[in-house]
Every structure is written in structure tokens, then in C-alpha cells.
């Protein structure tokens, strides 16, 4: 084991050519919400979720990726806290660097520091929030990134998104072809864009059914971005910058989405804190789960297969006798080591820290309780976060969404004001961390709140309408996720015409891929009929939407393409567009498509109609249909002008026919 300095140096020489990934983790969290817990107990990344320091989880999942170099960016004051972590993990990696930054005020500062020191010269995995968990190995994503880099040096960044539905959903616009990010959500409101219409190109898909995992694969250029503009605070600033002046920088960002089974989450507020611990305990992030975390000198857990976890005392490690506790643990709950728990205690969906005592008949649901707390008898705790060594008197009923920082002893009689969405502390916030207000409560407590007016508890809750169930939001989100997914059963119950159109579009595209045979046409018609029946679509609508979807096909982008495909699929048209009604519908479809702003189509429109009419063309339209449709058009519509020539010509033609009759 050579001394570290040499490692660092020769690794630096190496880095020019090799393309090994390095993980860069910003150990500190700059979310003011967490201040009540950070003041005196080290950086955020040492805070515990499921009784395990966050950073351990993070490093553990990095262990399963191909990465074997880790750089931790720590603010100077927290450096010593992280020493033991380094000791614990450094043997697992080829390189494990602790980099102390002189009191950074933001993620940006930390990254600038990193760039200043020129330690990184290769691509790296940027994790700006230490509390970022996933069970993906990122193999595919990294490969894609490298491939893109090879193709074009300017593909500097890949943002990794997951399909898991998370309360605040970022909306993004992505090029369908190569997953290039073209639209990024606004800073203030993640569900909004700040773009003008013309951004909505044909091949851009707007996705809101994915959530940002907080993981990004970057090349050094991104660091440069940070050091060049000193006002950048977080990652998103850099992204917006790159997107905003794409022309100047010529840098591209891409988006990669994890697959169905790969879960990912990060902790931004207390709500997501609870969610994350639930996900961990219910094994959604397996193999990242508490009983796989094992530090004989720190913490060991056994699970009884029911997603109930028990901390194990040192002397019991490895013994086969299953740990049993008097507590009635509901599923998805955890009790730390050497807890004293009396009879008939119910713990559901909660984490109880080591050495905590809980009194007879207390009920705990969806809480996270710190270490060495003393909780009295017959208490009722729901949806609350409780710090270390907090004392709660007997029979106390804690408000929902309360946040109690460490070393509190709650008075026997309830407080004279609501604490829901506030943080209750024994001390006042420091002056220097802005964005925090406080007011005193009797009993010498300080009630912290965000000056932004948002709830301490959750990002999307304004105070006042504070109390909302932890999961309720997630649910509502989940609904629209389902509707986004094509595969979901909901679509079947959705609005029939839409479904119908979607279905036949699918079948058309599928048939396009196959080599053409007349039988294929029949199958297509079969499918159309079947979905017609299944969705109760009238014959008119079939005529209309069939054609509408037809001209929406990629093959029909150009008029030429449309022409030959139409000729090829003549069977389809002869089948549906015999009756005049359907022909009119067909024209209506064209008319509707006309509305959308695509010039080439509009130009092609008269030719298209003509083509559909003449025997040389498809010859399915008949004069009366066209005329009838033309009548129906409103005088102002531009189509009239476009159609004028054809209409006149048709008119006189029909007259001639009349002459012939006489």
C-alpha cells in the first residue's frame, strides 16, 4: 500500500488517456431544511437513514458500478467527521480522496474548488446530493455515454432519469432519435418550460413520467463551465447554461432512462426522507437494503424476512438465534440495536434508532426516530421526524409533520401552537445561513421555518395548507404516470377515439415495418375493425381517424412518400372510402391536419386532394364529396384559396357531364 500522495499523482498522469470513471460526491447538503439536524452533528451525509449513515448507502451502490475511484468534496469544518468513513471504505476502492473545500456556500463552490485543484481530468460521475440511492449498475448508461463521447467530443453530459414516480416531477424535452436534451424545466417550477412554441419540433418528446435521479455522467468540460461562471450554484445552472447558448458552446447534454426494474430516489426534504427509508426497507432498492449493510464495528442488522429489521448487538453477531423484540413490528419497520421496548408497542413503517426506549402501548407510524430517545407510554407518533436523544412524556400525541431536532425534552402539556411543517429546536438558527426564520415558543424552544414560506416538511407544500398525507401527493403523481405509460391498463378505459387512433397507429406502423403483401392489408383492416368494435367507433369516425393517422405516419411526411404508400395501401382506401360520407370524413381529416403548422403539408394539400381524386392517382374521392366538403369550409379558411383551382375544374367537369347527359 504506497502512501496516498503517489497514488494521486500517478493516477493523475494516467487519467489523460484512460477513461475510467471517478465518482464525485458532494458530501455536504445545501438544503436549508436540514439545518436543524446539521448544526452540531457533522455533515448531512453522515445523517442516518435506516440507522445507516447516508454516505454508506451511497458508496455501497457505487461499489456495484464499475467505478473504483471516489472523491468526496467536504467543507473544511466537516473534514474530521468523514475520516472514519474514509477508513471504512478506502480499502474497497483503488482511490478514495477526501477533498476539503474552504467553506463552500454551494455545490458550485465545491465543484469550482475541485476544478481548481485539477485532480480530475477524466470523465466522472457527479452526485450532487449525497442522499442519492439507486440499485442500477449504470453499465448501459456509461457505455452509451462513452459511445456518444467517441462520436462527438461535445457530448459532455448524460443525465440519468428513472421511471420511478417522485413527488416533484421534472418535465424535460428530449430528441427522440438520440435522447438529446433540448428542453429543461424551469428553476422555480419543475413542471414548466420557459420556451417558445417553435421549440416543439416533430422529433422532440416531452416527458414528465420520469424523475431525475440526481446522478449525472460528466466530462471535465462541465467543471470548466462551473469555474468560468462563478454565479453557478447547482448542477441545473450549468445545464441551463449549456442549453441556453448551445450555438456558442456547442455542447450537448443527453438523457438516459433507467429500465423498469431499476429504482432510484434521493432525499430533498423530510417527506422524501420518509419515502426513501420506506423504499430501502421494502427492498425496492435491493440489493441496497439495511440487512446488506454490514459494519461489525458500527451496525449490523438482521431482517426476519418480513421487512422488519433488528439491530444486532456486537456480542450477538453471527449467532443463529433470530433476534426477537417485544415490539409488534408492522412490515417495513426497523428497531436499532439495544433498544428497550415495552409490551404492546406498535411500530409501522418507521425507523427507531439505537438505544431508544419506548414505553408501554405506544404507537408509531411513519416516523423516523433518532438514537437514545426516551419515548413515554401510550404516545401516538405519526409522520414525524425526531432527532437524537429526544424525550417525549407519557401519553403525548405529537402533531403530524412535526420535526423535532435533537436533545429536546417535550413538555407534558402540548405546545400552544402548531408545529406541523415547522422544526422545533432548542437553539436558534445561525445568522449566516439565510432563508431561515424562527420565532420563540414558550418553554424556551425555537420554532424554525423557511422564510420562503414553504413548509419545512416538504418542498411542494406551502404552509397554511400544511397538513397533507405523506403519500397522497405521490399517489396523484402516480396516476398520471400510469396514463403516460402506453402499457398501462388505464389506456384501455381512456377516451375511446383516442385509444382507437392510437391502436390503429400502432398497427399501421407495425405493418409498415413488415414487407408489404396484400394479405397484410387485410390484416390491417382486421385490426382496424377489431379496435373499432372494441371501442365502439362509428363508421364515420373510422373513416376520419384511419386517414388522419395514415397521414400522420412518418412515411407520409413528404407528399412523395404519401403518394407511393397510398398507392401501395390502395386496398385500405377502396375498403373504407366507398360511401361519400366517409370520403367527406377523409377530407375533414386532411383539413384538421392542415391546422398544425407544417408548411410542406399545407403546400401539398391541393395536390393530395387531386391525387386522391384522379384515376391516375388513387381515384377514391368523388367530385360530390369534395364539393360538399368545400361547401362546409368556412369562407375565411385558407384551404378555400388553396383548393380554388381544383374546385373550379371539378365544377366545369361536372357541368360537362351534364351536357353529355342531354
Amino acid at each position: 500500500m504506497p502512501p496516498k500522495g503517489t497514488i494521486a499523482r500517478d493516477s493523475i498522469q494516467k487519467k489523460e488517456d484512460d477513461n475510467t470513471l471517478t465518482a464525485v460526491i458532494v458530501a455536504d447538503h445545501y438544503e436549508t431544511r436540514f439545518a436543524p439536524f446539521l448544526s452540531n452533528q457533522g455533515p448531512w451525509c453522515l445523517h442516518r437513514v435506516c440507522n445507516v449513515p447516508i454516505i454508506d448507502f451511497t458508496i455501497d451502490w457505487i461499489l456495484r458500478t464499475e467505478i473504483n475511484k471516489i472523491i468526496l468534496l467536504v467543507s473544511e469544518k466537516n473534514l474530521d467527521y468523514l475520516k472514519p468513513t474514509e477508513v471504512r471504505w478506502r480499502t474497497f476502492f483503488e482511490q478514495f480522496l477526501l477533498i476539503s473545500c474552504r467553506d463552500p456556500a454551494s455545490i458550485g463552490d465545491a465543484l469550482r474548488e475541485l476544478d481548481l485543484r485539477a485532480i480530475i481530468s477524466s470523465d466522472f460521475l457527479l452526485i450532487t446530493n449525497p442522499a442519492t440511492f439507486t440499485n442500477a449498475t449504470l453499465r448501459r448508461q456509461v457505455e452509451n455515454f462513452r459511445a456518444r463521447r467517441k462520436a462527438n467530443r461535445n457530448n459532455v453530459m448524460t443525465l440519468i432519469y428513472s421511471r420511478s414516480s417522485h413527488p416533484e416531477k421534472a418535465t424535460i424535452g428530449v430528441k427522440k432519435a438520440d435522447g438529446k436534451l433540448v428542453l429543461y424545466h424551469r428553476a422555480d417550477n419543475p413542471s414548466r418550460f420557459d420556451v417558445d412554441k417553435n421549440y416543439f419540433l416533430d422529433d422532440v418528446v416531452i416527458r414528465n413520467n420520469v424523475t431525475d435521479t440526481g446522478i449525472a455522467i460528466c466530462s471535465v468540460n462541465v467543471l470548466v463551465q462551473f469555474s468560468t461562471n462563478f454565479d453557478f450554484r447547482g448542477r441545473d445552472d450549468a445545464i441551463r447554461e449549456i442549453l441556453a447558448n448551445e450555438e456558442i458552446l456547442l455542447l450537448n447534454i443527453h438523457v438516459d432512462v433507467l429500465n423498469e426494474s431499476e429504482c432510484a430516489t434521493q432525499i430533498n426534504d423530510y417527506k422524501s426522507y420518509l419515502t426513501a427509508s420506506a423504499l430501502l426497507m421494502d427492498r425496492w432498492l435491493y440489493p441496497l437494503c439495511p440487512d446488506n449493510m454490514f459494519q461489525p464495528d458500527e451496525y449490523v442488522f438482521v431482517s426476519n424476512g418480513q421487512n422488519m429489521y433488528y439491530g444486532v448487538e456486537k456480542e450477538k453477531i453471527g449467532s443463529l438465534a433470530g433476534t426477537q423484540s417485544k415490539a409488534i413490528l408492522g412490515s417495513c419497520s426497523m428497531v436499532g440495536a439495544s433498544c428497550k421496548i415495552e409490551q404492546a408497542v406498535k411500530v409501522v413503517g418507521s425507523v427507531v434508532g439505537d438505544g431508544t426506549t419506548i414505553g408501554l402501548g405506544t404507537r408509531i407510524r411513519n416516523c423516523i426516530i433518532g438514537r437514545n430517545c426516551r419515548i413515554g407510554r401510550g404516545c401516538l407518533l405519526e409522520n414525524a421526524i425526531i432527532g437524537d436523544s429526544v424525550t417525549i412524556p407519557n401519553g403525548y400525541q405529537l402533531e403530524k409533520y412535526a420535526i423535532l431536532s435533537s436533545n429536546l425534552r417535550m413538555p407534558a402539556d402540548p405546545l400552544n401552537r402548531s408545529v406541523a411543517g415547522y422544526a422545533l429546536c432548542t437553539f436558534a438558527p445561525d445568522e449566516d445561513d439565510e432563508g431561515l426564520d424562527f420565532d420563540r415558543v414558550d418553554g424556551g424552544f425555537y420554532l424554525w421555518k423557511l422564510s420562503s414560506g414553504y413548509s419545512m416538511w416538504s418542498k411542494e407544500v406551502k404552509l397554511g395548507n400544511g397538513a397533507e398525507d405523506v403519500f397522497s401527493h405521490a399517489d396523484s403523481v402516480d396516476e398520471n404516470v400510469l396514463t403516460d405509460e402506453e402499457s398501462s391498463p388505464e389506456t384501455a378505459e381512456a377516451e375511446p377515439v383516442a385509444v382507437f387512433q392510437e391502436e390503429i397507429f400502432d398497427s399501421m406502423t407495425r405493418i409498415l415495418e413488415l414487407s408489404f403483401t396484400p394479405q397484410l392489408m387485410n390484416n390491417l383492416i382486421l385490426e382496424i375493425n377489431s379496435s373499432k368494435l372494441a371501442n365502439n367507433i362509428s363508421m364515420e369516425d373510422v373513416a376520419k381517424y384511419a386517414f388522419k393517422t395514415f397521414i400522420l405516419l412518418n412515411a407520409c411526411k413528404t407528399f412523395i412518400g404519401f403518394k407511393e404508400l397510398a398507392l401501395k395501401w390502395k386496398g385500405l382506401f377502396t375498403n373504407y372510402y366507398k360511401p361519400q360520407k366517409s370520403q367527406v370524413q377523409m377530407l375533414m381529416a386532411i383539413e384538421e391536419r392542415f391546422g398544425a403548422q407544417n408548411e410542406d403539408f399545407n403546400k401539398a394539400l391541393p395536390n393530395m386532394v387531386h391525387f386522391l381524386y384522379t384515376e391516375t392517382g388513387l381515384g377514391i374521392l368523388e367530385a360530390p364529396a369534395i364539393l360538399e366538403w368545400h361547401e362546409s369550409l368556412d369562407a375565411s379558411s385558407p384551404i378555400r384559396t388553396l383548393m380554388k383551382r381544383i374546385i373550379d375544374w371539378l365544377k366545369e367537369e361536372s357541368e360537362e357531364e351534364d351536357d353529355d347527359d342531354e
Partner: protein
Amino acid sequence: MNHRFTITVARAAVIFVKSVLMHREFLVFKQVGKSPETMTTASTRQEVIEEGRKHLLIEEGRKQLLINLRRRTTREPSFKLATDTLNFLRKVVLHGTYNNLEELLALLRENGLILSGAYPSELVMRNLVLMVCKLARESNSRETNGEFDSPYDSLNKLWKKEDKENQIGRSAKTIRKKLIQAVNDIQIEMETCREHISAQGQYLVHMNDVLIVHSLSTSTTLSSFLAGAKKDKKTRVFSVQIPTEPDDHDAVSISLCEVAGKMCEATKVILSGATVFPDGSCLAPAGGLSICLAAHRHSVPVYVLCAFYKIAPFFVPDSSAVIKHSLPGLPVAMASKWAGRVRVLQPALEMIPANLITLFVSNTASIMPSHIYRLIGDYYHPDDVANY
């Protein structure tokens, strides 16, 4: 530049701190505890360092083993796990510092406990530790009196205390030499046992048999067994698996819910066991139980493949502790809705009672469930099992 220097210093310091910590830990774990003072006074600093260094090697080995276990995203075949464990134990024997049998056993046990503390569900680790303990006793007593007789063998030996190996223990050096030898033998036995098992396939499976197998894709032993069977016999194989699994080319894959219906066609059921307990019950991949019940109903024989290192000399108080649940196989979009409210059951293993099993196919022989305890005799020593 200066920051790099600071880091260097920090790193150097850390290394020292670490070694000291490990040293401490070592002393703590050691049952026969010499306090640091006595040690430093008794032996020169040099020796302490030396001991520390050796101990570090073991530490590293253990860490490395645990890391590899951690790195895996899915459960590997237990053969690999067994070999890794054995290699580590060999390291312990090699570098461990002990003067007589007790210390060696203590050392092994201590390391073993840490391993099985990290992975309580991997019973194979425990088995191997106990196995090596037994070998240690053996190699020790071989020194004393030529042959070693298993205390399981005769009842009337049980009452008289066997203390000869304690009093006339041989020097650590000889024990070490012999033990390493024995461990290597075990290694070889392990490597060969897959062939042996697959070799038995040839006469356990008959012409035109219709086999129902479970978790074919994960168990290499099972697949090699089938290969051995297919060599000269023509058989039909139904492989029970979940639809998402990749299905085997020469086996018809059926889902678990069809098994009960299909059983009437089958002539044999072949499972791969994860652990076999002394009473002949065993842990098998989840789903095995319902297959066995169906087989029992149609009185179809059930064979369970288990290499010798899967035979455990102990019972598990509650099987739920050793049965791990894995990732819920559901789209993650459901996660935020379900997490904390619905528990998705995904057990890896399942306990199958002895009465449902016809035969255990081990590398040495095919044994009836009721005779498993006999094998235990020649792999384990009761004292180790008792105070493990």
C-alpha cells in the same frame, strides 16, 4: 500543491490509525484476551508489529471476501461462495497467530461469526467454518493417536470426555501444515463434486422419464446433472420458471401455477437444494414446496441435489431469518405508491420438510433423508457445532 501534501499526511495518518484500530478489534474479538499492555511488555514492539501485519492480511482477506459478496447484484451459485470462503479460511490458518488448537478454533470461529453475521442467510459459510474446525481437530489428534474416530460413531464413547487432543496437542506449526493439506483436499473434493453429481444422473434418470425441474437457470449443478442424464437417455424436461427468466433450449418452460396440473405427466421431480438440515428437511429455491406437495399427491419421487458442503450440522430456530427476500419484480412506477404500505414477498428459498423428499443426491452417494445425519458425522465435530 500544499493541499496535496496535507492529503498525503492525512492518508499516512489514516493508515496508521487503521492498523491500530484493526489491532484493537482483533484483541477484542479474541476470546483468550491478553490486554495490550501485557502484550507490549511481554513481547518486543517488533513482534507486535509482525503480529499486526499478519492480522492485517486476514482482515484484508475478510474484507475482500465481503466486498466481493457485496459487489454481486444477484446471488451466485453457492459453489463459488464456498470456494471463496474456503480460500479465506485457508488464509486464516496460514497467517493466523495461534499456539495450540484452542486458539486456532477460536480464531476460526471469530472470523466465521463475522462472515455469517454479514450474511446470515449464507449457511454454506457456517458449514465450511465448522468443517475446517473439525479438520483442525482431526489433524491435531492424528498427531496424537494415528487414527481419528468420529465421536458420532459409537454411543458409548459419548460419555467419556475426549481430552487427549487437548493435553497432547502438537505444535501449531505441524497442525498448520497438516490442516492446510486437509483444506486443499476439501477444495479438490468441492471442485470434483459437480462431476460426481452429474455422473449419478446417468443411473438415477431412466429412459423416457418426464422430469420437472425448478430454477434450472440459476443452478449450475442441476443443469450439469440433466446434461449427464441426457447423455444417453432420452427424457422430456419441464423447467418451472417465472416468465421473465431466460428459458432453456432443451427444456419446456412452464410457470409455477401449471405445475399441479402437469404433475400427472411427470415421473420424477428434481430440485437443487440450498441447505440440508440434519433431519433431512432442506432449503430449496422458493416454489419448491408446492412442487413437492403436488409430487407427493401424485406420488412422484422427488430428488434433491446437494453437494456435501450444503449439509448443515445444525438447525435454524426460525427459517424466516435465513430466507432472504429480494427485489420486488414490479415496475418501479408502483414503488412510490406501495412502499411502506404493501410488502412484496419475494423469498429466495423455502423450507421443504423431509417427508416430501425421496432422495438426496450428494457427490458421494444418494442418501435417504433419514440418513443425512450419518454424513454429518464425517464432516463435523459435535463440540464445534455445540458452541458455535
